[in-house]
């Protein structure tokens, strides 16, 4: 048994080395390839001479080289990062890997990790970020927490002080493992180079499997420098204690189908689980066969085309009127890959009390966490949805769909029409998004920051393709937009990436304009400037008697700022210029910054006030 295992390892190691040598032939990893070739030659000559069998062929690598070999073996091609003292050996090794690994030097580690998130969300791959120890590592924490709550697969690699200095308050030492524990799916500190291949294999496996999430590997400087016998990279396919997918219970699938088939008013809520599970087609087939109206969470956006007849809009605090009101009228509520966030449910004790709840989720901890489930369907929805669809009766539920349309009309009259076709002099955020839709045809990747513009963009942006909406849903991280858009462009280089950002959020991470300048990431930056921290101001207006406490924010000359970074730009404040300016932005080759001055005190409606039931959604 043991012998068989060893043989397999050797075979895989040899295969990895061959791949490494091929890579080197193309001009990369010269050092690794040279050593590989040398050891290969030695093995051949030993065999030819009939000598005693040599030891298992290995290559001598430093820990840093092993890190980069692991990234290559995992298919990584783009890294976002920022060097520093404790990660210098890895950066030194990276110098020899420049042809194989593209490193994007950001201007702040927070920008690096948000870029890696944007990359992961548009590419479907694991995002990778490098940072040094101490402040470098702590600057990643916001992004880790953001990725954790939004289930974004990331591998963050941080440098750490020498193992001999751990715990001595050495220069730039922080206990990054303990700091990041609650914000990571898994983390691990490497203090010896021999641990690196296995630790990284485990990191990538954990980050991308099951419910994805961020993983952090902290590597001490001595481990980065240490040379060791590298026997090849073995991808991880199993961890003793980790079951990424729960076992699908067929009896629950049958019970769920029975409930849905018997429903008069079924209603589907879908979240990012559909996108993360690559189950968009399976989801579409499911709702189409059952004739099931479906509404999306902010992160579920783009899993179903906006204009699909069964798409009834957005859920939650600033969602659409009909799906919120009818949540409290449906008889069977089917949640697919969503987690009943409090921004979706409003007051839990008044949430869908009349409904039987079917919950499909890969994470068993989500079942019954917030909303009591009648039938849980544990599993990857890519697997469970087809099983469920097969048992569904073909239906249309036209009368029930009519109710969504009826309430939808009410929302159009009360809110949407005025937002998209304002008669006031001031421009609205909604009309900007409407024209953007016309010009992009719903094909663009839309990255948003956090605030009013985010909710407006999520409400009104049109999507034809999946993985097109990148936003900070769970953590609500202001400053996310610009760096995430840079990453999104690397994740989807052939697509138009539009970053819609408020004047508040933009000023949090605008240093990343420098990254755009240096690396030429083609990001269209659309600043919707209302001269306020708009969402906080809206709450202060509605709930704090208009006591506008520190929400008035002034902005620099954004166009001049962009120009300083060699980015073209324009600022407009007249409706007549809007379409032309947006067209100029989209047609421009390269990055472009467009500032649109919008109404100062416009509000985002409808709104479910905090502490209210979803049925108490306000239209004004």
């Amino acid at each position: 048994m043991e012998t068989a295992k060893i043989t397999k390892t050797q075979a895989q190691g040899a295969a990895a080395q061959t791949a490494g040598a091929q890579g080197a032939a193309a001009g990369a990893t010269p050092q690794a390839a040279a050593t590989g070739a040398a050891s290969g030659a030695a093995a051949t000559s030993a065999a030819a001479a009939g000598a005693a069998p040599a030891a298992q062929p290995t290559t001598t690598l430093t820990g840093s080289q092993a890190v980069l070999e692991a990234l290559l073996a995992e298919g990584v091609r783009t890294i976002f990062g920022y060097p520093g003292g404790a990660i210098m050996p890895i950066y030194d090794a990276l110098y020899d890997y420049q042809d194989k690994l593209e490193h994007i030097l950001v201007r702040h580690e927070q920008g690096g990790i948000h870029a890696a998130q944007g990359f992961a969300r548009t590419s479907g791959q694991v995002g990778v970020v490098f940072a040094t120890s101490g402040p470098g590592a702590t600057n990643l924490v916001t992004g880790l927490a953001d990725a954790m709550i939004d289930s974004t697969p990331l591998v963050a690699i941080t440098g750490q002080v020498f193992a001999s200095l751990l715990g001595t308050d050495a220069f730039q030492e922080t206990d990054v493992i303990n700091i990041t524990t609650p914000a990571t799916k898994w983390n691990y500190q490497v203090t010896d180079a021999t641990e690196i291949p296995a630790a990284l294999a485990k990191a990538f496996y954990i980050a991308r499997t099951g419910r994805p999430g961020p993983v952090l590997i902290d590597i001490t400087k001595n481990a980065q420098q240490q040379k060791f016998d590298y026997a090849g990279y073995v991808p991880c396919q199993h961890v003793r204690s980790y079951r990424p997918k729960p076992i699908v219970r067929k009896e629950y699938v049958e019970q769920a189908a029975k409930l849905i088939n018997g429903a008069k008013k079924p209603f589907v809520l879908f979240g990012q689980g559909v996108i993360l599970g690559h189950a968009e087609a399976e989801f579409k087939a499911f709702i189409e066969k059952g004739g099931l109206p479906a509404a999306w969470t902010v992160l579920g956006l783009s899993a179903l085309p906006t204009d699909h007849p069964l798409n009834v809009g957005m859920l939650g605090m600033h969602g659409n009127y009909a799906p919120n009101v009818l949540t409290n009228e449906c008889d069977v509520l089917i949640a697919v890959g969503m987690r009943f966030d409090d921004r979706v449910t409003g007051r839990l004790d008044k949430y869908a009390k009349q409904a039987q709840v079917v919950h499909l989720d890969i994470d068993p901890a989500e079942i019954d966490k917030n909303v009591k489930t009648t039938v849980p369907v544990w599993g990857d929805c890519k697997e469970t949805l087809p099983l469920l669809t097969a048992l569904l009766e073909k239906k249309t539920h036209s009368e029930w769909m009519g109710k969504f349309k009826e309430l939808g009309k009410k929302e159009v009259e009360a809110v949407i029409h005025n937002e998209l076709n304002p008669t006031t002099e001031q421009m609205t955020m909604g009309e900007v998004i409407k024209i953007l839709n016309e010009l992009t045809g719903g094909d663009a990747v839309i990255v948003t920051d956090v605030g009013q513009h985010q909710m407006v963009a999520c409400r009104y942006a049109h999507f034809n393709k999946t993985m097109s909406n990148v936003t900070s849903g769970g953590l609500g991280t202001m400053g996310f937009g610009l760096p995430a858009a840079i990453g999104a462009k690397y994740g989807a280089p052939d697509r138009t990436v539009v970053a819609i950002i408020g004047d508040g959020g933009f000023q949090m991470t605008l240093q990343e304009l420098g990254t755009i300048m240096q690396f030429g990431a083609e990001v269209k930056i659309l600043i919707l400037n209302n001269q306020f921290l708009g969402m906080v101001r809206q709450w202060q207006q509605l709930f704090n008697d208009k006591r506008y406490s520190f929400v008035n924010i002034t902005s620099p000359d954004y166009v001049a700022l962009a120009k300083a970074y060699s980015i073209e730009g324009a600022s407009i404040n007249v409706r007549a210029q809007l379409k032309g300016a947006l067209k100029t932005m989209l047609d421009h080759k390269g990055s472009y910054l467009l500032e649109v001055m919008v109404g100062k005190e416009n509000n985002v409606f409808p709104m479910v006030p905090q502490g209210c039931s979803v049925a108490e959604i306000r239209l004004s």
Partner: protein
Amino acid sequence: MQKQEFTITVYTENQIGLLNRIAIMFSRRKINIESLNTSPSEIEGIHRFTIVIQEFEDVVRKLCRQIEKQVEVLKAYFNTNEELIWQEMALYKVPTDVIAEKVKVERLLREYGARAVVIRKDYTVFEATGHREETDRLIKALEPYGLIEFVRSARVAIIKDSSGFHEKLKEFEAQEPGEGVIENEYLGKGTEVFSM
């Protein structure tokens, strides 16, 4: 519904930092840990945590699911006191001269099933195991005779159900890897790969 005592049993891999990862799941929810015991289990490389808390059942159920979600956790169970057999061990340090002179003390120790662990000229250490109330009663009884020091262990508990955790754990381990799954050769190798 009222808060009651629950014993959470967590089976984990033996990994640095896991204690912190589990402990912060309680502190994040502002749940006080009454007692926590961790030790190797009967299965190689698998550790067992026994954690006692006062909580509502619903909270404990959700908490266990979240604990189970941690990568290095195999299983997390929770039980009420009725479902468990448990013990805590206590050590009592008392002056030897008092013990030698006072026959009552000897009788007291017999009553509580205590045994002497160390006998020195200056003090004697007795050990007793039992439920909290039992070991507490012995403290009260020994106090008048000059109890010098007292220490108690965290709870160790075993489920009454005859199939118990051991079978469930084996089931879990048997779930995966299935036949076509290639083991990562570096994993499960303990000290050969990871410094534990």
